[in-house]
Each structure stands twice: as structure tokens, then as C-alpha cells.
């Protein structure tokens, strides 16, 4: 996977198959601690202990369409390849939690990637399942919760182009806001046009 966000998109699909009602996605990026931590937690059916032991073995899957299960194996490999760690815990009937940690400046650490499009794709693929998304970037926080959106709109499903477009822009802008860096009292915005201007200047 080219982006950590694609791993996350993939892992959340497991939660959907586990009939989760709520998926929590928390991303913590910290320059200070030089790490990126992603936590995906659901209230799905859970995984029995005997299966959990072998869950990151690529040759273990509950699928019937093919004999390999790569999602968790790839995520684990990605974390461990850049000096991080991977943990999975689960309780049958309660839910599953996947934690992956990455050393931020490791040469093999993929970028977090396009979270706006990832959240959009999650919402489109989640059906009735709700998503709580929290992104901490150097102690600045952005939170997006589909339950709030559904309550505001008084709708059951957010799978409408108009709403989806709003969600995509909302997440994009929210993340740009927390990723603005304040250096020497000046705000250095990291938007595309700005970096283009910087390139032109140099």
C-alpha cells in the first residue's frame, strides 16, 4: 500500500464484515515523539482467541473466495518495517482493536496519505455503520463523527453525493487547519499553492 490511509481503509472493511455499528479511527502524528500511531477499534463480532493468534499469518483467512488474507499481515509488516509495532486484541461479542505504530522519519514509512478521500470512501462503503475519526497532529485535533452528521441531517444514510462532497471538503479543510505550522510566530500554511509558490521562489 502506498499510503497508511489505504491500510486503514482496508482494516475498517474487516469491521464492516464483523457487523460493527461503530468504527473508531484515531491517528496520532507527533513530530516531537517521532511517531505515527493509528488505532482502529470496532464493536463488531470479535475474533476467537485461537484465530487471533494466527490472524497476521497471510495464509490464514475466513474467506472462501481465496486462500490468503493479506490485510492485517501487510499492515503489521508495514509497521515493523519502519521501527514501529503492531498489536491486535479482540473479545468475541465486544469488538476488535488494531494498533499500528510507525517511526515517523523512517525511510520506509509511507505517508499518511489522502485522508479526505479515505474518509469519503469509508463513509460510502460503511452502509449503516458509523465512523468516529479523530486526527491529532502535533497536539492539534480534528474530529469527525458520522453520528453527529446524521443527527444534524436527520437521515439514516450519508451515501448521497451532496453530503459526501460536503464531508470530503469538511475533512480536507479540518486537516489543513490542524496541519498549519506556527514557526517563529508566523503561520506557515502547507497548502499546495503555497508550496508551489515556495518552489517558484527558490
Amino acid at each position, binding site marked *: 500500500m502506498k499510503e497508511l490511509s489505504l491500510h486503514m481503509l482496508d482494516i475498517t472493511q474487516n469491521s464492516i*464484515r464483523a457487523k460493527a455499528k461503530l468504527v473508531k479511527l484515531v491517528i496520532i502524528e507527533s513530530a516531537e515523539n517521532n511517531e505515527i500511531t493509528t488505532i482502529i477499534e470496532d464493536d463488531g463480532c470479535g475474533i476467537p482467541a485461537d484465530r487471533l493468534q494466527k490472524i497476521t499469518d497471510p495464509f490464514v483467512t475466513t474467506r472462501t473466495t481465496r486462500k490468503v488474507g493479506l490485510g492485517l499481515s501487510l499492515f503489521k509488516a508495514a509497521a515493523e518495517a519502519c521501527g514501529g509495532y503492531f498489536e491486535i486484541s479482540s473479545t468475541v461479542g465486544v469488538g476488535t482493536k488494531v494498533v499500528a505504530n510507525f517511526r515517523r522519519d523512517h525511510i520506509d514509512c509511507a505517508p499518511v496519505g489522502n485522508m479526505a*478521500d479515505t474518509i469519503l470512501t469509508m463513509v460510502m462503503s460503511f452502509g449503516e455503520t458509523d465512523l468516529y475519526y479523530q486526527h491529532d497532529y502535533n497536539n492539534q485535533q480534528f474530529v469527525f463523527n458520522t453520528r453527529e452528521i446524521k443527527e*444534524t441531517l436527520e437521515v439514516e444514510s450519508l451515501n448521497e453525493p451532496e453530503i459526501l462532497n460536503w464531508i470530503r471538503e469538511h475533512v480536507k479543510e479540518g486537516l489543513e487547519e490542524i496541519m498549519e505550522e506556527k514557526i517563529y510566530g508566523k503561520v506557515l500554511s502547507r497548502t499546495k499553492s503555497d508550496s508551489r509558490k515556495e518552489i517558484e521562489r527558490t
Partner: protein
Amino acid sequence: MAKSLAELKAIREKKLSELNLRQGKNGYRVVVGMATCGIAAGARPVMVKLMEEVDAKGLVDVSVAQTGCIGSCRLEPIVEVYDANNEKVTYVHMTAEKIARVVDEHLAQGKIVDEYTMTVIDGKVIDPSVKG
């Protein structure tokens, strides 16, 4: 934040009834393969483009959902289009550009884009590139 909740509420005020209209009962149901294989092959840009195009063309009777792996990972990203009679057309090796054409021709005009479809002959899956 520019994309405020107020703006979201405006969407709601606009057409609450219209929002509930999209049941896809008379129209097309589009399903995108979103297992590890699909995502790694590029399902996300296909999904995003699909939303953009359905919106741009104002297709109110099209619904979009995801599915797992159907076992033909090498043909991902795979998009299945079901019509009102549940007849299925399977598009393989999809990209953002290809899905835009499928929306324009298949979903808007009802013409299947043959050159992107998968064919099964004697139980074997035939790649569109081989078929052509």
C-alpha cells in the same frame, strides 16, 4: 472552518425529500470491490470519481456500495453494476477515467461499455485486453 455545519444544514433544508429518494429500486446499484486486493489496486480513486460523476450528472436513482473480494484479485479494481432486474455487468481493471465513462454511458444512457467488461468462457475469466 468554511465547510461549516450551517452549510450542512442548508443541504438538509434544500431537499429532504429528495435525499430519501435514492433507493436505487428502479435504477442501478453500483458495487465496488473493497477488499485488500481492490484497495491496493486503486479502488479508492474509483470510488471517489464515481461519487463525483454521479453527482455531476445528477443521477438520483443510482446507489453505490462496497463488496469484498470476489476471487479475481488480478482484475481489481472491479466494479459491478446491477440493473433493476438484478442483472449484473462486471467491469474490471477500473480507473477513475474508465469509471467516468461507465457513469456517462452505462448509468446515464443505459449502454454497457463492452471493452471494460469481464467475460467468462468455460468457467475461465477472460481479460478485456485478451478479449479485444
